[in-house]
C-alpha cells in the first residue's frame, strides 16, 4: 500500500501535465473572477472564500480522471486488482496520493490567492485550514466517482455530473468555515462538521469505491 502510494505520487510529479496543472487552473480561476465581477474591494472580500473554494473543487475535479483512468488503460489497474492488497486499500492509497499531489498544493497556494481577493485578516488562517480539512473529502468522493466511470470512453463530463452533487455538503461547510473565519465569527460548528465529512468519507467510501472497481474490472 505504501509502495502504491509512493508510485502514484512519483507518477503524478514526473508525468507532465498532472501535478502543476491543477494548481495552474486554480490560479487562473482566482484571477479570472475579479475580471468578471470588477475590481471592487468589498465585493471581492465578501465572495473570496466561496470563489476560492469553488476553484479548489473544480481543480480537484479536473484531475480526478488521473486516479484510475491511466492505470485502467495500460492494464496496471487489473494487475493491482489481482495483487494481495484489497481494492479498498488501493482506493485509499490512490485517493491519498491524489490529495497529496492536488489538495495539499492548493492549500499552500490559497493564502497567496486570498491576497487577490482583498481578504480579511482572518481569511489567511481559516481559508487554508478549511481547505486542509475539506480537500481530503473532495479527493475521496472524487475517487469514488472516478471508480464509477473508469470503464467509460468519454467519462469526463459524466464524472462531473456524478461528483459535483456529492461535493455539495463539503462545499457548504468548507466555504462556511472559511467565511466565518474571515469575519471572525464562531467557527466551531462548521469546523466539526467539515472534519466529520472528511473522516467519514475516508472511513466509508473506500468500500463503495472498491465494490464499484471490482464491478468495472470483471
Amino acid at each position, binding site marked *: 500500500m505504501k509502495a502504491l502510494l509512493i508510485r502514484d505520487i512519483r507518477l503524478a510529479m514526473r508525468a507532465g501535465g498532472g501535478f502543476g496543472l491543477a494548481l495552474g487552473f486554480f490560479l487562473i480561476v482566482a484571477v479570472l473572477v475579479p475580471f468578471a465581477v470588477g475590481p471592487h474591494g468589498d465585493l471581492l472580500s465578501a465572495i473570496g472564500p466561496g470563489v476560492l473554494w469553488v476553484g479548489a473543487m473544480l481543480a480537484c475535479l479536473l484531475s480526478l480522471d488521473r486516479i484510475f483512468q491511466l492505470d485502467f488503460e495500460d492494464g496496471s489497474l487489473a494487475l493491482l486488482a489481482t495483487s494481495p492488497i484489497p481494492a479498498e486499500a488501493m482506493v485509499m492509497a490512490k485517493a491519498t496520493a491524489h490529495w497529496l499531489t492536488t489538495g495539499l498544493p492548493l492549500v499552500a497556494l490559497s493564502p497567496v490567492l486570498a491576497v487577490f481577493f482583498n481578504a480579511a485578516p482572518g481569511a489567511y488562517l481559516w481559508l487554508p485550514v478549511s481547505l486542509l480539512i475539506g480537500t481530503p473529502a473532495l479527493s475521496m468522493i472524487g475517487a*469514488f466517482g472516478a471508480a*464509477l*466511470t473508469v*470503464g467509460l470512453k468519454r467519462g469526463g463530463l*459524466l464524472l462531473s455530473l456524478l461528483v459535483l*452533487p456529492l461535493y455539495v455538503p463539503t462545499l457548504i461547510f468548507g466555504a*462556511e468555515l472559511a467565511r466565518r473565519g474571515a469575519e471572525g465569527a464562531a467557527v466551531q460548528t462548521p469546523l466539526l462538521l467539515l472534519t466529520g*465529512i472528511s473522516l467519514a468519507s475516508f472511513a466509508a467510501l473506500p468500500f*463503495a469505491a472498491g465494490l464499484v472497481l471490482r464491478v468495472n474490472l470483471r
Partner: protein
Amino acid sequence: MSLWEYANPKKFMDLSGRLMPWLSWLTAGFVAVGLIWGFFFTPDDYRQGSTVKIIYLHVPSALMAINTWLMMLVASLIWLVRRHNVSALAARAAAPVGVAMTLIALATGAIWGKPMWGTYWAWDPRLTSFLILFLFYLGYMALWAAIEDRDTAADLTSVLCIVGSVFAVLSRYAVNFWNQGLHQGTSVPVATGNRSVDDVFFIPLVIAMVGFGLLFVTLLLLRTRTEIRLERLKALERRERLA
C-alpha cells in the same frame, strides 16, 4: 407464496398485466377528483386568494419526488443483495418519473412563490435541497445511459443511489445551516400531529396525494413492463445474431 415470487419477470408481467387496467382507472379517478375538487370546489384562502390552489399539485408531486428516490434506494438494495432483475429495472424505470415530479414541484413552487413571496426562487433550504435532488436524479440517469452492459450498469447505479442518498440527506441538513428560509413548515400532520389546514382544503389534498401515489405506481409498473419487454427484445436480437 411470497412477494419474492414476483421477482420472476414472467410472473411479474402476468400480475402487473392484470393489475394495470384497474390501477389506471383508479389513478385517473383519484387524480381527477382530487384536482377538480381542489381547483373548482374549494373556497379561496382569505389572504392568498386562489393561488392557494396550486397546493394540490405542489404538495403531492413533492411528496412523490422524495418517495421515488426512496423506492429507488430500496430497489437498489434488493438488486445488490438478492440480484432480482425486476428490481434493477424498476429502479431504472422510476428515475424519470422522479425527475418529472421534482420538476413539477419546483415549477409550481416558483409560480406560487412569485405572487406570494415576491420571488420565483430563493436559496431557501427546502428549495435548495430539491434542486440538489434534481441533480442527483440527473446523474443517476446519465450513469444508466452511459453503460452498455445491463448488469454492470445496475450494479454501479445501485451503489451510486446508496452513496447519493447519504449525501442527499447530508445536503438537506447542510443547507439548513444558512437560515430557516421562506418555505413554510408542513401543513400535513405526519410528524407533528397538529394540522394547520382546514378540512375544506385538506380532504381534496389527501385525495390528490393518494392520486399521485397511485399515479407513481401505475407509471412505475408501465415503465418496468416496457423495460422488461426491451430486455426480451434484446435477448431475441442476440439469439437472432447467433443463429
